[in-house]
């Protein structure tokens, strides 16, 4: 038997005394690691999503709101040296008034090879020939659930500008893994999307530009400003920065709340550990009488603290891993993504950010062990004659 085994025995055999600290510690780690898992998984998915986005996006703004952009500039942009391809993108929210929900309508040019590839990534069984035979759309599982509530299991009637219903058939449901960004989306041919969203033929939501040489992006942005000086030009780097700032901001708020509450826990723990009970004094007195030194008592108490903190740390991380990645629609996703229009059907991709967990380790276990040290020393100097009383 060594100190570690002895500490394990005293902890296990006095479980009722230690369970409260274990539960609180585990709960703290569970909450913190759930935030880390959620934010890092979202960030990772978002980064992966951004990889598939064009290098530059041009939008038309009026009073800081998106307005349709004239797609006639696409040909002019395609003439700029260094631009591989410029294309129009169409998307917008359609209000499904019976359900009082918004649906994100996305138009795709299925004849564009790259866009067709992206669709195949979303929906493995995609067959362009079959899809283009009639007005078809791909929908998310959440939208499917919403449509089914109103008996739209084969098609959906979109009400277009002239109040006429436009029937679009449901061709398939795309992979749940990508629902994070397409949870409320329906994807259809760009012409149908324009019709539903009330766009003219020469209008688009934005223009996407692919630039193979990333070093050329700044030069091309300068040329774009000449072609369309009033438009907003967003590079992929800006998108990365914006998404990171968004999650870092939420993560920062959480971190300050977490540290404050964890410090509160440590203060309570410290005061509880500092007041040694009668039986505790006797126990230490016995150990001192049979030859344990003050150092030995501190080693024992620190071993106990290490076991409690490590076991709680691992338990909290494992619990949060299962909660975040196996249970859909957990509360942490809602905190980061906000409430949604439609029923959430989101599964996060498992992602383990080792740096974040290293930080969590240092802001929890290290202060906990430090806060244990003084009570451990205080209890170790308990009067050894307690044993002979």
């Amino acid at each position, binding site marked *: *038997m*060594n*100190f570690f085994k*002895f500490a394990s*025995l*005293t902890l296990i*055999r*006095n479980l009722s005394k230690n369970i409260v600290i274990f539960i609180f510690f585990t709960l703290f780690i569970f909450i913190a690691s759930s935030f880390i898992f959620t934010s890092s998984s979202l960030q990772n998915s978002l980064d992966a999503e951004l990889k598939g986005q064009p290098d530059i996006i041009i939008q038309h703004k009026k009073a800081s709101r998106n307005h349709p952009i004239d797609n006639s500039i696409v040909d002019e942009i395609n003439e700029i040296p260094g631009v591989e391809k410029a294309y129009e993108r169409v998307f917008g929210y359609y209000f499904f008034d019976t359900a009082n929900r918004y649906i994100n309508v996305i138009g795709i040019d299925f004849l564009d090879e790259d866009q067709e590839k992206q669709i195949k990534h979303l929906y493995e069984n995609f067959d362009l020939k079959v899809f283009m035979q009639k007005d078809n759309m791909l929908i998310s599982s959440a939208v499917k659930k919403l449509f089914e509530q109103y008996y739209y299991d084969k098609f959906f009637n979109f009400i277009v500008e002239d109040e006429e219903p436009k029937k679009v058939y449901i061709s398939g449901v795309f992979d749940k893994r990508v629902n994070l960004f397409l949870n409320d989306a329906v994807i259809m041919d760009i012409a149908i999307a324009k019709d539903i969203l009330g766009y003219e033929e020469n209008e688009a939501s934005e223009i996407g530009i692919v630039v193979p040489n990333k070093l050329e992006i700044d030069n091309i942005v300068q040329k774009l400003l000449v072609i369309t000086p009033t438009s907003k030009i967003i590079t992929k780097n800006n998108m990365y920065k914006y998404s990171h700032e968004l999650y870092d901001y939420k993560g920062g708020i959480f971190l300050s709340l977490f540290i404050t509450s964890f410090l509160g826990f440590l203060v309570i723990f410290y005061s509880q550990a500092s007041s040694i009970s009668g039986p505790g004094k*006797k*126990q230490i007195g*016995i*150990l*001192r*009488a*049979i*030859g*344990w*030194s*003050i*150092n*030995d008592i501190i*080693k*024992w108490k620190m071993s106990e603290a290490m076991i409690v903190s490590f076991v709680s740390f691992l338990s909290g991380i494992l619990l949060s891993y299962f909660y975040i990645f196996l249970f859909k629609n957990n509360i942490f996703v809602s905190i980061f993504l906000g409430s949604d229009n439609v029923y959430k059907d989101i599964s996060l991709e498992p992602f383990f950010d080792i740096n974040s967990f290293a930080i969590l380790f240092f802001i929890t276990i290290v202060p906990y062990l430090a806060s244990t040290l003084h009570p451990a020393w205080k209890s170790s100097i308990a009067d*050894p*004659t307690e*044993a*002979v*009383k």
Partner: protein
Amino acid sequence: MTNVIEIENLNLVFSAHTPREFHALKNISMQVKEREFCILKGVSGSGKSTLLSVMGALLKPTSGKLEVFSNPVSKMPDFHASTFRREHLGFIFQNFNLFDEFTVLENVQTALVPTNTPVAQMKTRALELLSLVNLETKKNTFARNLSGGEKQRCAIARALINNPKLILADEPTANLDRKNSENVIEILTKLNQNGTTVLVATHDEIFEQMVPNLKVIHIKEGMLL
């Protein structure tokens, strides 16, 4: 025979120079020789346990000389006092002072935890001692489930784990019936015959009835008579 314990003019004063000042031990001078079986006899509150605690380096005397195995115990810093207790002394208590939530085997091994003794060696030694005190069949029983006599035999095994040359026992039979008291005294007598010095603080007449060549030291109100 050499002196195992040598005390000269030892005094212990609690709360000195305060209105609550209490002179617990007064001018104690005594010797305990190697292989002696000695009892400190006195009524409750006479200072027996206090003197035993001083000899065991659990309490520091206010003044006087105290040497155990020629070590100046009263001047030892805590770390050395702990090591000294572990290497030279075995303590047996009136209330057994076992860890109720530990098994008999685990209780016996407790004193060896700080010594880095290999696990197998620790277990072998503990089992030998449980055999000596006739408790090997109870090795996996939790201490809380033992009878009073079994608890005291377990406590004796724990006190012997480091092979001490001196056993200090504080009222070891006070909580036991006659039969169990006899068992405990038999074990202590056997240890004494094998070379261990035994010093017992007690007011129990049974020691005088059972132990041959017993040295009796009377103590009253903190003074030897």
